C-alpha cells in the first residue's frame, strides 16, 4: 500500500515532466515564427489585448505577450542580441527612459509615426513613443469638500488646513515619484522637499493600497481628498463593487506652478534585437492610428496623444485637460532624485 503511494507520486511527477517537454518546444517555435510580433509588457494584458486583437484582425499578424510589473528591461538586457522581444510597453515615462538608458531600444522613424505623435510625446531620435496621456488628479469627497474649498493646485495639498484629511498611495510608486519629480523640476529640490513634508504631515493614514483604494477610503470617511490617475474614475464607474466609491467623489484638475495638470504617458519602444522588425513597426503605426487611439480613450479612459482623436464621453464630461507644459524627459531625468527625497522625508513610514 505504502509502496504504491510512493510509486504513484513518482509516476505522476514523471508524467508531468513528459507533458512539459512538448510545451517547451511549442513555446520556442512561437518566438521565431515570422507571422508574429513579440511584446514585453509592463501594462496589464486586459488593458491592451483589445487593441492587439484589432491589429491581428487587420493584418493577420499574431501578437505574443509576456506581462510583468518588473524585471522585463533586465530580461531584455541579459538576452542581448538573441532576445525574442520586438517591442516593450510601459505605463510611465520612467521605464521608457530606463529602457532607452540601458541601450536595449532601437531608433525608428516612419512618416506615419512622426506625423501622428506630437514631438513632446516621443524621444527625439524615435527610441520611444508615447501612446496615451494620463493625468494625476485630485479626488474630493462630495459630502465633505465643497467645490470652492477643493484644492486648485498640488502645492495647496501641503497647506495645514488639510491636516489628517488626505490619502495617497506609497510615495515611491512610479506615479507619485513622477509627480514629485515634476515638483522638483518646477520649484527646485529644497521647495519640493518642504512640499513633500507638508503633504506627508497632512496624511490621514500611512500610505497604502493603489489609487482606487484611496477613493474607497474617501467613500468610507477615512479621508476627504486623495491623489489618483484620471482613468480610474471611469474604470471604477464600470465596476459593480467600485461604482459606489466613485459616486462618493468628484474629480478636480489641479495645476502645478500655475501651468497645468501633471501628466504621465504610457508608451512603447522598439528593441535593438527585434527579430520581427517589420511586424513591430506595423504594430507601432497601428497603435498610433485613430482606431487604436480611440479605443484607448473609450475602453481605458486615457487621453489620446494623437491630436484630433475624439475622447470618450466620460473624459469630456470630467472637464478639459490642460496639461503641465514641462518637458517630460526633464521630469524623467529627475526621477532618481525624487525617489531619494521620498526616502529622506520617510513618506511611507
Amino acid at each position, binding site marked *: 500500500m505504502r509502496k504504491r503511494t510512493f510509486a504513484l507520486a513518482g509516476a505522476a511527477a514523471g508524467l*508531468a515532466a513528459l507533458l*512539459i517537454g512538448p510545451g517547451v518546444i511549442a513555446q520556442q517555435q512561437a518566438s521565431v515564427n515570422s507571422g508574429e510580433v513579440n511584446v514585453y509588457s509592463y501594462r496589464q494584458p486586459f488593458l491592451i489585448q483589445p487593441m492587439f486583437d484589432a491589429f491581428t484582425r487587420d493584418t493577420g499578424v499574431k501578437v505574443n505577450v509576456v506581462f*510583468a510589473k518588473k524585471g522585463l528591461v533586465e530580461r531584455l538586457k541579459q538576452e542581448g542580441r538573441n532576445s525574442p522581444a520586438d517591442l516593450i510597453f510601459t505605463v510611465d515615462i520612467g521605464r521608457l527612459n530606463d529602457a532607452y538608458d540601458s541601450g536595449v531600444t532601437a531608433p525608428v522613424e516612419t512618416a506615419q509615426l512622426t506625423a501622428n505623435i506630437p514631438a513632446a510625446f516621443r524621444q527625439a531620435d524615435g527610441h520611444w513613443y508615447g501612446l496615451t496621456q494620463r493625468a494625476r488628479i485630485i479626488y474630493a469627497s462630495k459630502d465633505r469638500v465643497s467645490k470652492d474649498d477643493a484644492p486648485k493646485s498640488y502645492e495647496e495639498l501641503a497647506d495645514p488646513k488639510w491636516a489628517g484629511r488626505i490619502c495617497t498611495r506609497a510615495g515611491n510608486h512610479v506615479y507619485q515619484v513622477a509627480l514629485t519629480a515634476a515638483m522638483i523640476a518646477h520649484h527646485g529640490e529644497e521647495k519640493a522637499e518642504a512640499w513633500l513634508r507638508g503633504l506627508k504631515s497632512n496624511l490621514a493614514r500611512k500610505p497604502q*493600497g493603489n489609487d482606487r483604494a484611496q477613493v474607497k*477610503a474617501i467613500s468610507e470617511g477615512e479621508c476627504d481628498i486623495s491623489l489618483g490617475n484620471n482613468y480610474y474614475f471611469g474604470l471604477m464607474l464600470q465596476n459593480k463593487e467600485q461604482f459606489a466609491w466613485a459616486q462618493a467623489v468628484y474629480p478636480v484638475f489641479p495645476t502645478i506652478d500655475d501651468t497645468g495638470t501633471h501628466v504621465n504617458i504610457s508608451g512603447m519602444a522598439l528593441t535593438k534585437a527585434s527579430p520581427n522588425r517589420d511586424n513591430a513597426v506595423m504594430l507601432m503605426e497601428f497603435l498610433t492610428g485613430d482606431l487604436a487611439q480611440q479605443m484607448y480613450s473609450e475602453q481605458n479612459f486615457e487621453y489620446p496623444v494623437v491630436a484630433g482623436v475624439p475622447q470618450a464621453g466620460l473624459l469630456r464630461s470630467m472637464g478639459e485637460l490642460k496639461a503641465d507644459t514641462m518637458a517630460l524627459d526633464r521630469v524623467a531625468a529627475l526621477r532618481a532624485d525624487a525617489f531619494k527625497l521620498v*526616502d529622506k522625508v520617510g513618506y511611507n513610514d
Partner: protein
Amino acid sequence: MSMTTLSSLSSSTRPSQGRVWILGGLLVALIVAAPIGAIAWIALFPTENIWPHLASTVLPRHSWNTALLMVGNGIGVFLIGTASAWLVSACDFTGRRVFEWALLLPLAVPAYIVAFVYTDILEFAGPVQGLLRDVFGWQTARDYWFPEIRSMGGAIFVMSFVLYPYVYLLARASFHEQSSSVLEVSRTLGRGPWQTFLTVALPLARPAIVVGIALALMETLADFGTVDYFAVNTLTVAVFNVWLGMGNAGGAAQIALVMLGFVILLISLERIGRQGRQYHHTSSRFQASPRVRLRGGRHLAAFLVCAVPILIGFLIPAGVLLRHAIVFFDDSWNQAFFAFARNSLTLSATAALIAVSIAVFLAYGRRLSGRGFGALSRIALLGYAVPGAVLAVGVIIPFARIDNAIDSLARDLFGVSTGLILSGTIFALVFAYVVRFLAVGFGAVEASLGKIRPTMDMAARSLGAGPGRTLWRIHLPLVRGSLIAAGTIVFVDSMKELPATLILRPFNFDTLATHVYQFASDEQLERSALSALTIVIAGILPVIILSRALRQARPGARTGTPKDTQATTRG
C-alpha cells in the same frame, strides 16, 4: 542517544565511490548556487552605486520592521504549530482524526490571498465594522477605535495562521516517531504529562520544530504580496522599491544580500539549536503511545486550539473565495482557465520531483562525508530566502550568458545562430522553482535521515552494500514519508509562486497564480477567484496524500494493516 557520525565510515569505503558523491554534490551545489552568485555580482559591481543612500535611509527602518515581523511570526508559528501537533499526537478528543489532516489545510492558501480576504472582512467597509457601527450607532472612522488590519500586527496575524503548518507538519512527524517506551520511562519516573511533554517530547522534537520555524521565517522573509498589501515596510519591499522605483537592480541586489545575512543568521540559529547533537532512538522496540482521553474544560480547550487555526487560516478565506467564484463562475470557467491549471500542475510537479531528488542527493552526501560537505550544501539552500523577483534576475543572467555563448560559438563554427535555448522557456521556470524551494525539501529529508541510526548504515555496509545500494535499499524506504512530505511542500509552494513566474515565463504563458495576480493587484480578486480557489484545491489534494502517508509511515502505525505494521517494525 548515539553520537557517532558517519565520517569514519566514508573513509573506509573505496575512495572512488565516496568521490562520486562528493564531486556530484559539489556540481549540484554550484549549479543551484549560480543565481545567487549572479546576484552577489551585480550587488558588488552595480552600474550606479546608491549604497550610501540606502544605508542612511531605507536599510535601518526596513531591517527593524523585518526583524519585528520575524520575531512575531516565529512566536506565532511555534505556539500554534507545536501545540496543535502535540494535542493530535498525544491526546484524544472530539474531531482529533479530522484535525490531524485539516490542520495542514492553510498550507494550501497563498498568504497574499488570505491578506486580501481579511482586509475585506475587517476593514471599515467590511461586515465586522459595519455590524459594530449598526449596533453602537457610530458614523465615521473617527468615532471609534478598531485595530487596523493593514499593519504590522495584521501581517503577523495573517502570516502566523498561514505558515504554522510548516511547524505542525514536522513537529507532528517527529512526535509520531517517538516511541512510547521513551515517554513511558518518563512517566514511570514520576513526571506528569505536561512535564513529559516539556522535558522529553519537546526536546526530542526540537530539531524538527526548529527546521519548521526556520522554513516559516524564510517564507516570511521572502514574502512580498502580504507585506506590500499591508504597507509593512520590510526588506523585500525595499528590494522592489529600489528596483521598480529607482530602476536600480544593483541597489536591489545589495539589499538582497543584507537579507541573505538574515538567512545565514537563521541557519546558524538552527545549528546552534541542535548544538551538534544528533537524536536517534537506540531502542529497536517501537510502540505507539496510547493517547490520553481529555475531558471537560481541557477537552474544549484542545478542540479550540486545533479548530481556530483551521477556521482562520483556511475555512474563512476559502469560503470567501468560493462565494466569489460562484458569482463570477460564468466569466471564469473557460478554455483559458484549463490552460492555466495545466501549466501550474505540470510545472509544479516537475519542480517537486527534481527538488526532492536533489535534496536526497545532498542530504545523503552530507551524511556520508560530514562537515565539509555540509557547508557546501548550505550554500545551495540560500535561494529560499531570496525574493522571487530578485532570484529571477539571478536566473536570467547565467542562462542568458550560456545561451549567448553557445550562440556565438555556433555562429563562429557553423555560421548558424542557435538563438536562446534555455532563456524564456519553461526550463528556466522549473529551475527557478527548484532553486527557490530546494531548502524546503532538503530540511525535511535531512531531518528525517538524521533520525536513522548510523548503525543501520554500518550494518548494511559491513554486509557489502555500497553507499548507493544502502541509500536505495535502507534509507529511502525508511524516509519515504518525509520524501512525500518534502515533494508536496515544494509542489504547493511552486503552485503559489508568483514574482519569478511573472518575469521568467515564456510568451502567452499564464499559470493560475499569474492569472490571479493580474486581477488581485487591481483590487478585483473576485474576478479571478476561481483560479485562486483552484490553487487552494490543488494544494489540498497533496495535503490529504501527505497526511495519509504520514500516518502510515509511522512506525507501528495503528491505522495500517497488520502486515504493514510487521514490515515496519522489522525495519
